[in-house]
């Protein structure tokens, strides 16, 4: 980690000590890195530079924003309260599916309730909060690792139920043998089963810009700017939505969490994390607090799910496999659980360097090697791409090895993820910014001797 420490020391302290500046500097650095690598890729592939950069950055913005949102939501459970909830994917699924079912037209396949989108959204949050409240009941009496098993089991139960044909609502003819519409007090609906379900919109930016075929004045302007820069409308939409998530939603989550954390309720949460028995002895009803925090946190996860997976126009149960939960956990752990700034930083670092980074690196290496091979052995040469491990590694051709590795970067990415998790747990379990974990007391009890106020976050050498 000495390289990391040296890098960290090179960062001016004016940035390190101010959360806003730190996040902005991190984002700026990440964007710069991606922009430079994308410019290089575009030049190597003879593509237009600006659209390529714009497309890459809009994708990056979206990923950073959604992982930051989810990490912040998880921080409420794991960072503040110490509840080891690894059922995040399930709560996201409840949010996205509730909204989709509430907003689906009654005559469709599967049928839904046909509510307007804003009401469906609120309804979905209420439903997610209720499901979270039910999920909290095990949390009242279980230790952390049992809670982990219960929540991951619950998220699999949710996914399997959504995946089941039995409730899918795809066969709407009541006479049919395979009629599978759920009929609840006369309200008919279905989950879509394994085929998935349509979410209300495939282009959230159209709420601002108007429908894609017929944009309003703001849309005309935005798309016009896009055209003048050589960027097509879908990239403009994606960029708009990503920026909305990053600037407004992440900020809103951040502010909300800071406020919860500083409230009396937040102090009880932190007290539960430190020692539940003590909190109980001081007369706090920790059971009720846990139920409430589960409801709020799950609603935040549901909203995050809606803003993330609900924004593609279509979703199926396999989107919500436990691996999504582990992604979010990794983001929070990398950033530092217990710290809101850490959550955002973790979301950004995870999205940019662990999730998207290996792929980008593979593209750059591929382009660079391609260029090198052309200069060495003439035009037409390219990196071999063996189609399986045996073909690649039964030869003694390092280029074949490299080609196979680049082609299979997606599985290497998971290995990297695993290695990072283990490394963090062994060497830096508090994460990048976890040393800023807010303590339960409102005054710092640990620094009695010195009269100087502790400079939070200035020191990072463990």
């Amino acid at each position, binding site marked *: 980690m000495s390289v990391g420490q040296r890098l960290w020391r090179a960062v001016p302290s004016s940035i390190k000590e101010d959360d806003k500046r730190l996040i902005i500097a991190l984002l700026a650095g990440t964007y710069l890195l991606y922009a430079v690598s994308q410019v290089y890729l575009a030049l190597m592939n003879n593509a237009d530079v600006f659209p390529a950069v714009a497309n890459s950055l809009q994708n990056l913005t979206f990923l950073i924003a959604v992982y930051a949102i989810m990490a912040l939501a998880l921080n409420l459970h794991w960072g503040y309260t110490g509840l080891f909830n690894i059922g995040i994917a399930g709560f996201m699924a409840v949010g996205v599916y509730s909204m989709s079912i509430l907003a689906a037209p009654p005559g469709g396949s599967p049928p839904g309730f046909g509510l307007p989108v804003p009401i469906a959204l609120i309804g979905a949050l209420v439903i997610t909060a209720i499901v979270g409240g039910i999920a909290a009941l095990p949390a009242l009496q279980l230790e952390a690792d049992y809670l982990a098993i219960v929540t991951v089991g619950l998220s699999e139960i949710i996914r399997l139920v959504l995946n*089941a044909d039995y409730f899918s609502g795809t066969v709407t003819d009541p006479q049919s043998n395979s009629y599978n519409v759920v009929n609840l007090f006369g309200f008919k609906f279905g989950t879509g089963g394994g085929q998935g379900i349509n979410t209300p919109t495939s282009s959230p930016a159209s709420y601002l810009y108007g429908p894609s075929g017929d944009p309003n004045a703001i849309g005309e302007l935005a798309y016009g700017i896009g055209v003048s820069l050589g960027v097509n409308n879908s990239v403009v939409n994606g960029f708009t939505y990503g920026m909305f998530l990053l600037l407004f939603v992440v900020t809103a989550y951040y502010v909300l969490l800071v406020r919860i954390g500083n409230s009396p309720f937040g102090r009880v949460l932190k007290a539960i994390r430190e020692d539940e028995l003590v909190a109980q002895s001081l007369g706090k009803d920790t059971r009720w607090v846990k139920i409430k925090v589960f409801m709020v946190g799950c609603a935040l996860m549901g909203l995050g799910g809606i803003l993330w997976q609900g924004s593609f126009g279509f979703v199926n149960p396999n989107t919500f496999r436990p691996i999504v939960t582990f992604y979010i956990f990794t983001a929070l752990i990398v950033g530092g659980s217990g710290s809101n700034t850490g959550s955002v930083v973790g979301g950004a670092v995870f999205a940019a360097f662990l999730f998207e980074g290996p792929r980008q690196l593979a593209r750059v290496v591929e382009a660079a090697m391609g260029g090198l091979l052309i200069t060495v052995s003439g035009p037409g040469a390219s990196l071999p791409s063996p189609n399986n491990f045996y073909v690649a590694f039964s030869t003694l051709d390092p280029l074949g090895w490299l080609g196979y590795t680049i082609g299979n970067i997606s599985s290497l990415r998971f290995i990297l993820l695993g290695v990072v998790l283990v490394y963090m747990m062994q060497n830096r379990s508090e994460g990048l910014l976890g040393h800023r974990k807010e303590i339960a007391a409102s005054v710092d009890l640990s620094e009695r001797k010195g009269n100087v106020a502790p400079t939070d976050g200035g020191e990072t050498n463990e």
Partner: protein
Amino acid sequence: MEIAERYSAGKRVLVEHPAVALLGAVLLYLLSDLILKTANVSIAPWGVHLIGGQLPVSNLGRFVLDGLIVGLVVGLAGVGLSMTYGILNFANFAHGDYITTGAFAGWLTAYIIGFLTLPVDPPFGDIFLFAESSLVSVVNAPVAIVLGLVASGLGTVGVVLLLDRWVYRPMRDKGGIPLLIASIGVALALRYAIVFVFGTSASGVTSTSDIPQFEIPLGDGRIPLDLHEITLIVAAIALMFGVHFLLQRTKLGKAMRAMADNKDLAQVTGIPTERIIRATWIIGGGLAGVAGFLIVLERGVISFNMGWRLLLLIFAGVILGGIGSVYGAMAGGIIIGIASRVSLVWIPSDFARVAAFTVMILVLLYRPEGLFGGVKTA
């Protein structure tokens, strides 16, 4: 006297734990429903179907047998999970991928031996990647199966010991949650290392065309049972007895019990704790690997996420049997296996896993010490 005591105890449960009583009532209803169904009796007063129905005994027999097969694998794999939970105090989420590791190590060995001994001539690359499908069976290459079984155990032990050396040993003094998170990391790395080599597609590996089928007559029908299933049942039961003797006849079992009870006390008593931990990994990892080999033998298909898909069922079995108990893990696994298959009498097959996970959650909530009272039997 005793009956009166039991009666009052039952009344206390009813008053103090209504949920437990309700659960008992549901189970009782399901059991009587099952008995009536097999007896072909249906009770439907005033046209409302109350209980009973129709279920050929042979169908039920097949469900139970299928459940037993899954259950034996779950139980066998659960032994290691339960041991590491009891002795190292963490829920090892990488255990499912130990199963996958064993399956791939074992079947690769079986395939290579099949390639050398069978009269087939595919390119070696196809053998290595299981692209040559359905090559080996108990009949055409028994040696390959036996050596594959051994290799699955040994290979997994090797991987598990290396992982313990690199990942878990430096973290012995940390709590359960950091270890759990690290084990998730191990699970991901291991699973996708397998994907990196073998790819994501599932491959059929066993040849079923020439293996003998037996039919057990039961009630009004017959239960089919093939030689691969018999191999699985015999091997799994033999291994379970092996573990039993190992833990009962050697000092190892006692040392493990001592460590599960109090690690520090065990250490000051002179128990070589690191060696016991290594033995735990060897037994647990080996059994997990063999379980992976056997389930592939029975199902005929190998894929990179088979172990992960089994993991929650294994957790369910271990929790049902009581965490830390080896016999509980075996029994709990078998119960979960049978319950998940017999549940198909009432619910569509989409929900079999849902039922198993629900049982797991209910047990954790109402009887966290497990069905057998949390007796640590090593």
